């Protein structure tokens, strides 16, 4: 098992996730932190980015004269197109997602449960305006759903939990969780730690209320 001495900064975590994106994959990167992963995908990998508002082959963020109000990503940020890009309407965009054609999507999360339930759309707090967008469609659509998040909330509470207390986005849909302190696989039999960053497995076991296996018997 890989272990490093310090926690990962968001940019390092994005770079780490990029290493696990297969060459030639069709990938959707969720709004927010996962968007950063695009900066770490080498062009020669031939990864094709999908944006659910209707495009395959999305390029980097547009700047200055490149900005075109008719060309944005799902976060409504102006973007560019790459050679071989294609446009399609919303029903097609979500059909290709739901139909299992998308290889990977990476989403942010409030919480993930030990069985891979995802909560990332609504805090459920009184006065909060619910807004789901494409989160539920992405959660059940891509072949592999990866989560990118901090392992602990600002108040120190773990975000990998036995059962989500926030409203669910999808049930049993997450296969890997990439965090600033460790990487976890949801195996179907439990949760396996595959890498740690500045924290020992014993401390993880101490701070998480979730049974953890390790890839190799190690401390």
């Amino acid at each position: 098992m890989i272990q490093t001495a310090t926690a990962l900064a968001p940019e390092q975590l994005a770079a780490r996730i990029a290493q696990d994106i297969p060459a030639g994959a069709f990938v959707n990167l969720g709004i927010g932190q996962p968007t950063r992963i695009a900066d770490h995908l080498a062009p020669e990998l031939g990864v094709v980015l999908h944006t659910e508002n209707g495009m395959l082959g999305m390029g980097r963020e547009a700047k200055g004269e490149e900005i075109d109000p008719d060309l944005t990503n799902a976060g409504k940020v102006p973007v560019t197109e790459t050679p071989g890009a294609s446009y399609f309407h919303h029903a097609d965009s979500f059909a290709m997602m739901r139909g299992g054609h998308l290889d990977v999507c990476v989403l942010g999360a409030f919480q993930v449960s030990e069985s891979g339930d995802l909560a990332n759309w609504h805090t459920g707090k009184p006065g909060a305006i619910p807004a789901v967008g494409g989160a539920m469609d992405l959660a059940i659509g891509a072949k592999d759903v990866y989560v990118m998040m901090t392992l602990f909330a600002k108040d120190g509470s773990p975000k990998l939990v036995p059962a989500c207390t926030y409203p669910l986005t999808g049930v049993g849909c997450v296969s890997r969780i990439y965090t600033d302190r460790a990487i976890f696989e949801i195996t179907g039999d439990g949760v396996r730690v595959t890498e740690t960053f500045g924290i020992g497995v014993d401390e993880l076991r101490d701070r998480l209320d979730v049974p953890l296996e390790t890839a190799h018997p190690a401390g």
Partner: protein
Amino acid sequence: MARTAIMPTPDEAVAGIEDGSTVLVGGFGLAGMPFDLIDALIRQGAADLTIVANNAGNGDVGLAALLAAGRVRKVICSFPRQVDSYVFDELFLAGKIELEVVPQGNLAERMRAAGAGIGAFYCPTGVGTSLTEGKEIRSIDGRDYALEYPIRGDYALISAHIGDRMGNLVYRKTARNFGPVMATAATTTIAQVSSIVPTGDLDPEAVVTPSIYVDRVVAVQARHYTVQGAR
């Protein structure tokens, strides 16, 4: 068998929209939003509207202006809350507008179903979440699906790039978004375009929305908005 009508102005294009109508409004954020048709609808005065759109308005323009004018009873959308959705936020928190949140792909597919004559369909999105509570769940080949019904509009207001005099439409980049789906799902589809070309000038292989779905077309001056509002 009314063929597509070329309308001289947006005001004439939206004539006849009744109070209480369900209106499908294209656009994802500001991209593809039919600003001129919405402004004309505000002048036209129809009220008590149910609006189906991806968002619930951005800034003070387009859909946000319609909401601010007090014409909307209910919004059916996937993503109302955004950095610049203050018009909707205020109305919603004051209890002055109803909201139905629908996952984005279900919103699109439910309109597609309406336009394609599908009575209902089983969809895996949202199963096990609060957004499918009360819906029929069926297990098919070991996977659970929720029964989803079509969303039909009395009117669709969409924005396309170029139309021809027959009413065929092509779109531009991600401004296409909901336009082609909404065009199929409404009794009366009204499209604004930046230009209308003679019949035969559009490559038939490149037509995205065939004229059969389009009832009225109006050419408007292209307006340029940034993602954060009018420029």
